[in-house]
């Protein structure tokens, strides 16, 4: 759709008076006022905003319409006559361009309402002698009902919507609006205004870590800042996890917990041992609490890929497994995860953790590395863990048992987390390249782990489904086919491990890591 022009009107202006003026002066047809509301949506992590889009659902007397709009020029990318509130995920929308776009942008994330505005709108049309509309003008007022139920006006405006192939008509109107009515077009600020009015800030949540540290900072202060950031991520996702809005809340929550545990484990000389021990135990509990639901989420997220990997004739027979996974995920969530996150143990952990993070730094800390510059500590620890990864990886032969690969996977994770915590201390290009290399190895180990866990779980599911009477011979056959798929996947990624590791341990890469992390003479604080 063509780019509209927006003209601001004064707050005191009466739309109806403008309507009369414009209809008479520009010879436009107009309809009676229409009252509707518009709700803006995005994912929790602002994926649409990051892509320069906003999703708007307009609800009026003639039904609802949902539009994906380009924020920069207000042109409509895709639209559909549906109420998006009826669809939790993009995949539940009817097959359409809008759905395809949203699925690509949002992936597994659910849509959340950001802000709702009340709209009063007059539509004025310029028609030709045949009764064909050549351009539309909209007189609009937007207001928001605040927490106290009071209606607050945000903006009154005139919007000129050109139609494709009728540029001249739009240009003529634009000229007349400027000359006869002294109206000047501005950039559209409605979305930004609406967010501000609702106390929201676009892009205020991202799952990636970006912590700005200076190498000379005291290590305990720097690590606390990292931990505070992780704690903020946990708290931000908590409500979404409890409400089970989408799988990504738990994913981000869990990653923050794992990063916290990793920091407490790898940087143990930065904090007093007694304090550490208590928190390590509590965060380990939180990690295991979230494990089951996450495993089931992963299974469900990959379900369609798995389904399509088995022979076509068996695919529909796999559906009872999906239903079972949903049931089990729901049960785990409502019976275990959600009650525990509402419970006292978690609440206490949060209180004590907050107190620990807020406490003033000790003047003469007992922990050995606490007062050292974080630059040195980061160098030293990262190098140690990197050496460990190399050693563990080199020890793996084609006959090594699975747990050895899992151990290596965990070490890689520790390394990755340290590199991410202290990213700001290193040259951006160097650290990014090193993370990329590590990620390739991690992907291989992650795929291996997923397949291994899923094979193990599948056998248990079969038994449980049989007990619940959901296991037919046909489903059994489909699950056997899935088992075969997972096993061949497991073998394939296992076979790829050696070459992946060789790449990671190559001389170029060793030089890269050495250059970044090798402790120099004065830095050797071990």
């Amino acid at each position, binding site marked *: 759709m063509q780019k509209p022009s927006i003209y601001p009107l004064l707050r005191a202006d009466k739309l109806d008076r403008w309507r009369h003026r414009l209809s008479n002066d520009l010879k436009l047809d107009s309809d009676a006022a229409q009252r509707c509301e518009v709700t803006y949506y995005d994912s929790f992590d602002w994926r649409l905003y990051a892509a320069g889009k906003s999703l708007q659902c307009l609800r009026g007397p003639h039904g609802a*319409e949902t539009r994906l709009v380009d924020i920069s020029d207000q042109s409509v990318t*895709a*639209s*559909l*006559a*549906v109420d998006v509130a009826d669809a939790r995920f993009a995949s539940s929308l*009817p*097959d*359409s*361009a*809008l*759905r395809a776009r949203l699925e690509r942008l949002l992936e597994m994330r659910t849509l959340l309402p950001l802000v709702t505005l009340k709209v009063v709108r007059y539509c004025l049309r310029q028609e*030709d002698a*045949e*009764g*064909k*509309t050549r351009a539309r003008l909209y007189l609009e007022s937007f207001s928001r009902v605040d927490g106290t139920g009071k209606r607050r006006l945000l903006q009154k405006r005139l919007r000129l919507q050109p*139609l*494709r*192939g*009728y540029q001249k008509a739009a240009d003529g109107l634009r000229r007349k609006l400027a000359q006869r009515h002294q109206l000047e077009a501005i950039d559209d600020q409605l979305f930004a205004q609406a967010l501000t009015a609702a106390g929201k800030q676009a892009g205020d949540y991202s799952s990636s870590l970006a912590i700005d540290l200076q190498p000379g900072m005291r290590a305990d202060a720097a690590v606390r800042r990292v931990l505070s950031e992780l704690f903020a991520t946990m708290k931000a996702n908590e409500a979404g996890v409890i409400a089970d809005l989408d799988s990504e809340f738990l994913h981000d929550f869990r990653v923050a917990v794992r990063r916290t545990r990793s920091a407490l484990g790898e940087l143990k000389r930065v904090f007093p041992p007694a304090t550490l021990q208590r928190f390590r135990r509590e965060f380990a509990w939180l990690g295991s609490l979230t494990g089951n639901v996450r495993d089931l989420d992963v299974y469900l997220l990959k379900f369609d890929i798995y389904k399509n990997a088995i022979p076509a004739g068996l695919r529909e027979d796999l559906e009872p497994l999906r239903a079972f996974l949903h049931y089990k995920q729901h049960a785990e969530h409502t019976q275990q995860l959600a009650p525990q996150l509402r419970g006292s143990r978690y609440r206490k952990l949060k209180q004590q953790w907050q107190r620990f993070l807020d406490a003033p730094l000790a003047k003469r800390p007992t922990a050995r590395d606490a007062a050292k510059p974080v630059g040195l500590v980061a160098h030293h620890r990262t190098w140690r863990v990197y050496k460990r990864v190399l050693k563990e990886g080199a020890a793996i032969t084609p006959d090594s048992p699975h747990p050895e690969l899992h151990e290596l996977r965990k070490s890689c994770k520790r390394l990755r987390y340290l590199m991410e915590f202290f990213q700001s201390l290193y040259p951006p290009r160097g650290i990014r390249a090193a993370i990329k290399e590590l990620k390739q190895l991690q992907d291989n180990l992650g795929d291996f782990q997923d397949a291994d866990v899923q094979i193990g779980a599948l056998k248990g599911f079969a038994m449980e489904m049989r007990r619940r009477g959901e296991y037919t011979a046909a489903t059994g056959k489909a699950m056997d086919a899935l088992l075969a798929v997972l096993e061949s996947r497991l073998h394939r990624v296992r076979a790829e491990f050696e070459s992946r590791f060789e790449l990671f341990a190559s001389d170029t890469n060793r030089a890269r890591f050495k250059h970044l992390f090798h402790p120099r003479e004065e830095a050797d604080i071990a």
Partner: protein
Amino acid sequence: MITVACYNIKGGVGKTAAAVNLAYLAAQGGANTLVWDLDPQGAASFYFRIKPRIKGGSFSLFQRKRQLDDVIKATDYPRLDLVPADFSYRNMDLLLEQQRKPGTRLKKLIKPLRSEYHFLFLDCAPSISLVSENIFAAADVLLVPTIPTTLSLRTLKQLHDFCAAGDYAHLTVIPFFSMVDRRKSLHREIVDNRGGILEAAPRTYIPYASEVEQMGMRRAPLDTYAHASWAARAYRDMWQELQPRLLARRRAG
């Protein structure tokens, strides 16, 4: 983009009504849809109240002086656009003959629009000529409105044979019954006992109805002014049947 040509060698069988109404339903369902009124009579343009004229005439399009993109007009309905007719289309055969590779000129013209529209409906003039060959080369699906009479079936057979003999293996021919009058025993007999090439026809047929004829007076798609009528329902049902077949065609392509 899926290109659907509403085509029949015969005239007055409901081609334009099908193109306009089905395109309207496609757009209502969320698809960006374009109708190209290829008939010099300009009936589709008339229904959308758009002047049957393009800048520079068809000459400028076929001489590569103007892109199709420049002559597209928005209709009064969301997501639905039109390339209007032009009286010069009556000479399209002659124009095409002067081109290099005259058989695929149309296909070349619509190529740049592929990423913008999900459906392109070609409302074709009745005839079988070089223009038809262009249409067959450009279209994915040939939607053939067919009145259930002996002569119409014979024409359909001719069309089938022509497509089979030519190099149009990519083309799916879908006939459908149009202007069906169940008071006539011949209509009833043919519609109820479909076989051979008619097996591909959707189960839904379009009845002979005055509401459809009123499109000329209302100058709007049927659904906008007679939503509850039998004929409007028939178009909706038929679109429900056709859409998955068209989408499957795209995936196969």
